[in-house]
């Protein structure tokens, strides 16, 4: 069935189709309409679930954890301050290997107060042990939520998943979405019945303590599972494609990267704008491409290396900032390529922009490509190739909305 849905409605639809049984959430813009929609589904009888009206996000995740260990499929969603407020529980849930799924409608963090999109909220949770998948469209938001339940609960993964969608640009913008049939989803996602669940007939502890002789083993297994998730994410994407006819490339989504001299790496909905810019530059004969990173954690080092190894300059656009250094993605891409040990490793130019909902316009991305292509030309002439210059092509104050790290 085709429907006109925004990103948040697409997520809510996926949660209904996944037959989530317990939902606990706390309102925050721009996430709220996800859980409002779910509350509506429950009220109109189209979804059989318990909605726990918790008093905070910390409690939302604690309640989801409590419900999940009884062996039920659960869901929560948040943004920004709410995600930050959950921080303690994020580690706890992943450490307990509880396969929760949470939608994060990305929004910047205060101060200053903002309700608009950037990725700082989720990026700041990089090391909480959650899988983080970033989507480009409402359709992908729906499909990725379904995939997320499958990935999280895979016995070799057992790791919670955040499905990250840009606030407003995705969450509140409608597009035509193909809504899968319930029967097909039921085949893809059978009921969640974990091996271990709360059961007085078989008493076990969830969330144990561990001394120095055992703690590292738990963390090692958690790390191994996250690494293994790289394959599972790809498998699940393939399986999804076979059933529903849509694929997102699993970990990375390359666009015209073959033979590209300059590739722009980014996450989220900005990819839509970037595709247009790439098309335009390609028409003019420039060898440019786009690599949309879908899985931020686990970090797809091998996939990134294989796509980026032959390029001359890699531009990275971060919608986040590690203050006092640079965008987090830029650092990670540099590290990934450094480790590749390939002669002629491309230069990585990190740009930070789109913070707190500031627009990333086609001309901004074109400016990034132009600057990187100039560096390629310098390199071809045997000159120092470094990407340089002020970044702002958008007519606003130089370097304020978009800057080179």
């Amino acid at each position: 069935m085709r429907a006109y849905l925004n990103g948040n409605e697409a997520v809510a639809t996926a949660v209904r189709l996944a037959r989530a049984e317990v939902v606990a959430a706390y309102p925050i813009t721009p996430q709220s309409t996800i859980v409002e929609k779910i509350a509506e589904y429950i009220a109109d009888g189209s979804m059989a679930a318990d909605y726990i009206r918790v008093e905070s996000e910390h409690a939302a995740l604690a309640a989801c954890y409590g419900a999940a260990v009884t062996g039920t499929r659960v869901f929560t969603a948040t943004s920004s301050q709410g995600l930050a407020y959950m921080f303690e529980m994020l580690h706890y849930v992943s450490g307990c290997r509880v396969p929760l799924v949470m939608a994060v409608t990305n929004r910047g963090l205060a101060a200053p107060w903002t309700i608009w999109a950037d990725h700082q909220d989720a990026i700041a949770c990089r090391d909480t042990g959650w899988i983080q998948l970033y989507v480009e469209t409402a359709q992908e938001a729906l499909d990725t939520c379904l995939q997320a339940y499958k990935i999280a609960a895979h016995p070799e993964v057992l790791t919670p998943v955040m499905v990250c969608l840009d606030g407003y640009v995705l969450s509140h913008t409608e597009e035509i979405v193909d809504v899968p049939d319930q029967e097909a989803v039921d085949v893809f996602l059978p009921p969640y019945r974990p091996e271990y669940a709360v059961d007085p007939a078989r008493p076990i502890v969830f969330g144990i303590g561990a001394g120095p002789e055992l703690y590292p083993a738990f963390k090692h297994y958690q790390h191994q599972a996250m690494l293994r998730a790289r394959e599972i994410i790809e498998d699940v994407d393939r399986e999804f494609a076979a059933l529903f006819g849509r694929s997102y490339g699993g970990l990375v989504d390359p666009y015209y990267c073959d033979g590209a001299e300059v590739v722009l790496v980014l996450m989220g909905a900005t990819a839509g704008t970037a595709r247009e810019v790439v098309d335009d530059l390609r028409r003019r004969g420039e060898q440019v491409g786009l690599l949309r990173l879908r899985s931020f954690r686990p970090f797809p080092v091998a996939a990134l290396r294989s796509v980026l190894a032959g390029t001359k300059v890699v531009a990275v656009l971060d919608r986040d900032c590690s203050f006092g250094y640079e965008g987090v993605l830029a650092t990670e891409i540099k590290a990934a390529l450094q480790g590749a040990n390939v002669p002629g490793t491309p230069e990585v130019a990190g740009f930070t922009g789109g913070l707190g909902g500031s627009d990333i316009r086609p001309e901004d991305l074109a400016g990034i490509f132009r600057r990187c292509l100039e560096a390629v030309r310098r390199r071809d002439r045997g000159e120092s190739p470094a990407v340089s210059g002020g970044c702002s092509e958008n007519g606003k104050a130089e370097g304020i909305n978009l800057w080179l790290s």
Partner: protein
Amino acid sequence: MVKLKELPGNELVQGSYACAGCGGILAVRMALKVLGPETVIVTTPSCLLGVTTFYPQLAFKVPCVNVTFPSTAAAISGVVAGLRRRGKSGVKVVGLAGDGGTVDIGLQALSGAIERGDNFIFICYDNEAYMNTGVQRSGSTPPGARTTTTPVGRAGRGEDRPKKDMLAIVAAHNIPYAATASIGYPQDYLTKVQKAMETEGPAYVQVLAPCPPGWGYSSHLTVKLARLAVQTGQWPLAEYEGGRLTVKEVANPRPLNEYLALQARFAHLLASK
């Protein structure tokens, strides 16, 4: 009323690392005799968690869901909803938290869960300080008590604020059942646990649970102190039921000194100048 002689002999708490004379573990052990094996424990960082569930130890013979310090009651709501979804509504869900995990950092979650009306029992074992982290004061520390964050010195005279009236706080939520108890009066305590168990909706029991190292007394005095606290009027045995508060009268109250003098945490109050 619970008959002590009829309580099951088998233990649902066994092999904990609690100190000798720990009032907290006694409170839990006794409560589980009433609650029985069809119970799920939800608990939080505290001495209780520290002495019962360090891998591969499991000192409970019932399932135990440990959660973060502020979250006991929030996780309870999740467990209750999950069990209902799985058709296991008959299983009792009991939250066990220390005074810190109840009256301080856990208060918001507890307020939320009571307000939602979930069916659960919350037992706060009150040892009147943060014991697990080294006897820091909590909102439940009585005035005058010396703790590591209310030390006694030239300017400090121990805790300088009254003990938080948690029973009034839960009563203000129109909770169906709430009570205070003392491990020194097991019949009274366990009857209250039984009532809590039979209550539809949230029920709260706060049980005084003396702590030898935290209060500064030798471990054979735990029960004696738990009784003296009641007999000297320091710890009223109260019940809030159907919107009415009743407090058990102490027929012949004993002098407060008898209670204070046995504990190092109050020694400075009695020292002669």
